[in-house]
């Protein structure tokens, strides 16, 4: 671990705003995404999905479809036998990718076809006859917890009775009852957030090819091709080594592409047809059949003294996971109070099953909802005791040595720094006009590291191929190239970074938990250092001196000591040129478990204007403050902050899954699932704090997720201040805001 420790240094190229190495391909249309691959003889795959929210599948008749001209394979769950032992996360993936006896939600896959072209595939889907028996359904989290609720998964029990509650988690410390007894002011409020989708612009897409020998290839848009390989190989009964998975360019993921959805179906179709099969989801399928985040219902209670000291905090969180258990409520509970140092605190979370799509991670999963409830209540307490909301937070802020509500005691952390930056920001002092309001809020996320493997190969001309195994979701190749160039002491332009397929590197964990730059950055540093050791050894051979007499600086081997003063430094390129005669290719390699990512904090400020006659909110100004540890490429750090804030704004104002009484999703389209458009947003100001992470050689901290956490609460505060009534339900869509205004005015 010692080598992971942060060492202060003057960077030469790290921190500069260079052009990304994959940029030209992406602005010329040449970059190949999930749907951009073609194979000889490829078929078109399509999936038949359940029109019911919950139904017994009595019979599937595929005989007519199978006989159609041009149809090469039709599959049901019978073609994906269970090899998982019937339980666990991979079994859930199997059941989710193809229903087994019961359709668990509107859009659940029940059969699939592969045909010579799109019209034939569509016709074949129509020819499949499924006999359903509709079952009672439940899509609302509170309704699903009721005594007489329809049961989503038989076998789940709570308190000894069949239930939809799959997990109850509790975190905290102290005695909350005693804490509330000490309080001068107690505020208790309930909140709801509706279900949102990651909304990546690229639908799920893959090209699968499995031969009769059992060997397979999968080209897929994913955040983790190694994980996809392992899961798919298990579900299909293939050897891991015989399934080569290549991650295409990925058109956005935000957690939604960490999960396997339909790839086993594509592989099974290909195996049955003995032809490559391309399977691409339509946008409606993305909404119906891939990972939204939870909808929630939450109660938060905070007690404080008049001097601003919080005496107790308590949260009860109810998160729906779709029809399969997930860690989502638990993560909400763990993150809910993480910004504060509280003597008495408790968070209880219920994970609840409903007839909606399987929930997936969405950028700092589960944290935004809990933060919405806790931060909104913080505002209410501050108002009640007449304190400035920033000062109130500062008075209770978590610091080094504070005991986190999720258990451990914090080391050095950055929340106070972000709050101070907010307090001093000119945005906080800007004047507001009529019908305008300002809000601010804090957010927390864990960040992870994980298994990582990187390869660095030096060409005879001194240029460097860096092969990374974590998927590049938004500029990582530029950052890795900067790090390799920094470490080797060569120009950025001399490094070419690419993402390797599963046959070219050891396992890499999925790009999730803001881990890409943190962990591949670490592996790149170590791989470069390994290569430097080889370069020094080669220089020693060329000079015929002892390797201990050589040091590496500014991209060259330098011989130490006066006895070698006649030896001019040997550059990397000079050593590489001679490599055929000094032992062959020069490479550096590293595999590491990059733990110690450190927790992350952000604070946001938002100004809005609300039309009091229509309830419509316009974002006037938005500022993000977040700790990046060290910004390797500041443009892409800002980009992460801005993108996360924009997603949070959409979540706060307009995005939601709307279910009908029939349990069907009403709005599976970008027309009616309303993500922010360009004209909805102002420029989003960013302030990058650089408080080095002690557990990374360059001080890097993950930056991708945390800034989606504060927006819901920051905007709720701003809207509430603009209209004079507290909003407690996201999205704060115009009908909800207008209704709140009307009710506040007694109309």
């Amino acid at each position, binding site marked *: 671990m010692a080598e992971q420790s942060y060492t202060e240094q003057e960077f030469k190229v790290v921190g500069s705003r260079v052009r990304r190495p994959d940029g030209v391909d992406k602005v010329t249309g040449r970059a190949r995404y999930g749907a951009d691959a073609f194979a000889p003889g490829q078929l078109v795959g399509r999936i038949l999905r359940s029109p019911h929210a919950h139904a017994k599948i009595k019979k599937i008749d595929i005989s007519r479809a199978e006989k159609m001209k041009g149809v090469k394979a039709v599959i049901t769950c019978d073609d994906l036998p269970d090899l998982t032992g019937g339980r666990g996360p991979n079994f859930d993936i199997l059941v989710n990718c193809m229903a087994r006896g019961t359709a668990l939600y509107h859009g659940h896959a029940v059969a699939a076809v592969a045909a010579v072209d799109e019209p034939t595939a569509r016709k074949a889907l129509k020819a499949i006859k499924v006999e359903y028996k509709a079952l009672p359904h439940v899509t609302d989290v509170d309704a699903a917890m009721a005594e007489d609720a329809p049961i989503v998964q038989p076998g789940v029990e709570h308190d000894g009775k069949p239930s939809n509650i799959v997990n109850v*988690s*509790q975190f905290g410390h102290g005695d909350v009852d005693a804490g509330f007894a000490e309080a001068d002011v107690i505020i208790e409020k309930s909140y709801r957030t509706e279900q949102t989708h990651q909304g990546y612009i690229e639908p799920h897409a893959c090209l699968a090819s499995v031969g009769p020998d059992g060997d397979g290839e999968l080209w897929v848009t994913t955040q983790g091709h190694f994980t996809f390989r392992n899961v798919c190989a298990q579900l299909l009964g293939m050897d891991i080594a015989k399934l080569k998975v290549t991650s295409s360019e990925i058109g956005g*993921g935000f957690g939604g592409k*960490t999960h396997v959805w339909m790839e086993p179906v594509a592989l099974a179709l290909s195996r049955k047809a003995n032809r490559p099969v391309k399977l691409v989801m339509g946008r409606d399928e993305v909404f119906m059949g891939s990972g939204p985040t939870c909808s929630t219902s939450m109660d938060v209670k905070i007690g404080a003294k008049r001097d601003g000291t919080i005496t107790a905090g308590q949260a009860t969180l109810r998160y729906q996971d779709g029809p399969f258990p997930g860690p989502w409520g638990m993560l909400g509970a763990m993150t809910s109070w993480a910004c504060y140092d509280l003597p008495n605190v408790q968070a209880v979370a219920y994970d609840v099953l409903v007839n909606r799509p399987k929930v997936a991670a969405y950028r700092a999963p589960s944290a935004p909802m809990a933060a919405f409830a806790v931060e909104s209540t913080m505002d209410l307490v501050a108002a009640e005791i007449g304190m400035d909301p920033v000062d109130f937070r500062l008075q209770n802020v978590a610091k080094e040595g504070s005991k986190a509500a999720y258990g451990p*005691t914090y080391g050095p952390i950055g929340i106070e720094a972000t709050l101070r930056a907010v307090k001093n920001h000119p945005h906080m002092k800007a004047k507001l006009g009529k019908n305008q309001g300002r809000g601010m809020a804090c957010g927390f996320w864990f960040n992870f590291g994980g298994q990582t493997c990187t390869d660095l190969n030096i060409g005879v001309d001194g240029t460097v191929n860096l092969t990374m195994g974590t998927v590049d979701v938004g500029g990582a190749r530029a950052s890795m190239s900067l790090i390799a160039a920094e470490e080797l002491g060569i120009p950025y332009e001399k490094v070419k970074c690419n993402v390797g397929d599963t046959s070219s590197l050891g396992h890499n964990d999925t790009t999730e938990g803001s881990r890409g730059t943190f962990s591949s950055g670490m592996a790149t540093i170590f791989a470069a250092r390994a290569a430097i050791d080889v370069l020094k050894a080669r220089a020693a051979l060329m000079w015929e001196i002892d390797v201990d007499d050589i040091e590496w600086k500014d991209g060259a081997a330098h011989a130490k000591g006066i006895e070698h003063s006649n030896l001019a430094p040997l550059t990397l390129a000079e050593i590489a040129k001679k490599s055929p005669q000094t032992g062959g290719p020069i490479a550096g390699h590293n595999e590491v478990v990059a*733990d*110690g990512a450190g927790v992350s904090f952000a604070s946001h400020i938002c100004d809005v204007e609300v039309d009091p006659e229509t309830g419509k909110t316009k974002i006037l100004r938005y500022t993000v403050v977040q700790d990046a540890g060290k910004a390797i490429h500041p443009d892409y750090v800002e980009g992460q902050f801005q993108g996360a804030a924009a997603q949070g704004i959409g979540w706060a104002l307009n995005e939601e899954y709307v279910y009908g009484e029939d349990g069907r999703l009403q709005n599976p389209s970008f027309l009616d699932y309303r993500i922010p458009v360009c004209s909805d947003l102002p420029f989003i100001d960013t302030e990058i704090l650089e408080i080095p992470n002690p557990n990374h050689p360059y001080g890097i901290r993950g930056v991708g*997720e945390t800034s989606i956490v504060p927006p819901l609460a920051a905007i709720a505060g701003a809207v509430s201040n603009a209209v004079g009534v507290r909003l407690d339900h996201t999205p704060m869509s115009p009908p909800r805001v207008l209704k709140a205004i009307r009710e506040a005015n007694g109309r």
Partner: protein
Amino acid sequence: MPRVSLASGFQAAVDGAVSVEIEAATIRELVRRLQEQYPKMTRHFDEGVAVSINGEIYRDIRDLNIPPDAEVFLLPRLQGG
């Protein structure tokens, strides 16, 4: 001897205790001894457990020394986006 605190989800596996004392110098030893003393913990380790040492969370690293007076916390393994 480090005192190991457990997140609520694990407490049933250690007979309802909030924390237990385990003689261990490294995370690997801790994980082994915990399972030896409390076999019900094995299922949790199979599903994924993160270990926090003095506030720093480790998901996979096992060969890390645990300082004598360290705060040790067992947390569920986390997922991210």
